[in-house]
């Protein structure tokens, strides 16, 4: 009885054959609608900063180094791949690629920086129509932003006019340490 049941088991296992994936040696494409690492299209981006305002993990940082140039940095280390940046982008400049092979020994390997020219309206500072439904979002969106890219810190301070003193202050900004 014992032997027959074992033989039965072996036959049952033989039926489907080998099911194991040969993954690291054979490439395996991601399924449809899979959200991997986001990728910016710098030719389409208008630099509105909507992605950085909507990011739940605050991975996207914006720093205006002068009136015309805005540097954006995507820090992929804490990205949750929710795809909200791609949803909110008015120009569809962010594409969620299907790249999931992101394992590294260095966190800097999964970052993305983008330098943008900003054509500024001389009267209001920005040309982007701001979101009017939420007062808090509206406050964030206004004007120039000064996040620190070296320490990956979001600085919740914006100015209507480009301010060199704030730029200087935030260059040395350090996040308070806990441990």
């Amino acid at each position, binding site marked *: 009885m014992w032997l027959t049941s074992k033989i039965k088991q072996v036959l049952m296992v033989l039926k489907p054959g080998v*099911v*194991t*994936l040969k*993954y*690291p*040696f054979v490439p*395996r494409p*991601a399924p449809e609608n899979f959200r991997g690492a986001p*990728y*910016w299209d*710098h*030719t*389409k*981006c*208008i630099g509105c900063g909507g992605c950085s305002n909507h990011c*739940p*993990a*605050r991975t996207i940082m914006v720093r205006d180094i002068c009136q015309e140039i805005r540097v954006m940095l995507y*820090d*992929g*280390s*804490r*990205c*949750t*791949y*929710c795809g909200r940046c791609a949803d909110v982008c008015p120009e569809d400049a962010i594409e969620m690629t299907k*790249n*999931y*092979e*992101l*394992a*590294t*020994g260095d*966190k*800097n*390997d*999964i*970052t*993305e*920086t*983008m*330098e*943008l*020219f900003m*054509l500024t309206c001389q009267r209001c500072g920005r040309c982007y129509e701001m979101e009017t439904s939420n007062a808090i979002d509206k406050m964030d969106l206004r004007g120039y932003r000064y996040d620190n890219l070296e320490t990956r810190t979001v600085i919740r301070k914006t100015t209507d006019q480009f301010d060199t003193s704030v730029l200087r202050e935030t260059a040395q900004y350090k*996040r308070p340490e*806990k*441990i």
Partner: protein
Amino acid sequence: MLSKLSKKCFPKSLWVYHCNSGACNGCDIEILNVLTPYYDVERFGIKLVGSPRHADVMLLSGAVTRPTLPLVKRAYEAIPAPKLVFGIGSCATGGGCWFDTYNVTGGADKAIPVDYFIPGCPTKPEAIIYGVALALGLVDKKASPIELKQMEFPIDSYEMNKAWEERNVIYQLIKD
């Protein structure tokens, strides 16, 4: 260099200790998924062990929360000397959404030295296998920092594209 070192240190098999430091169980389920016959990491000699004293590798999932911080440190110290630490998931890599909250240290690398980061929320089982294969030196690293730069004003490129499209429209009209 790390992959060479790990090749030398772990020529045969990696025994893995799985440590959850306040993860949402998403990454833990993916780690269990990796051990199933479909993904089958035992072909690389990877085995899950219950005690850190038996292990070579620590799989750390979750942003290290304040209550688990001393326990994670103790578990790390209990692993015998040539050891690797894998940070699995966005939380272990950089802290996830909770990177600056009061109760979280913000990433595994602030608590213990982490050798490999595997981002993803949760990580795909393939991504975990890829990370392990990267540590073993079976595959090449694909991730690299991307730098993008606008070389001309966007309005110029926009007008150029528009002019190009209009030109093409005329050609299509002629064709019809």
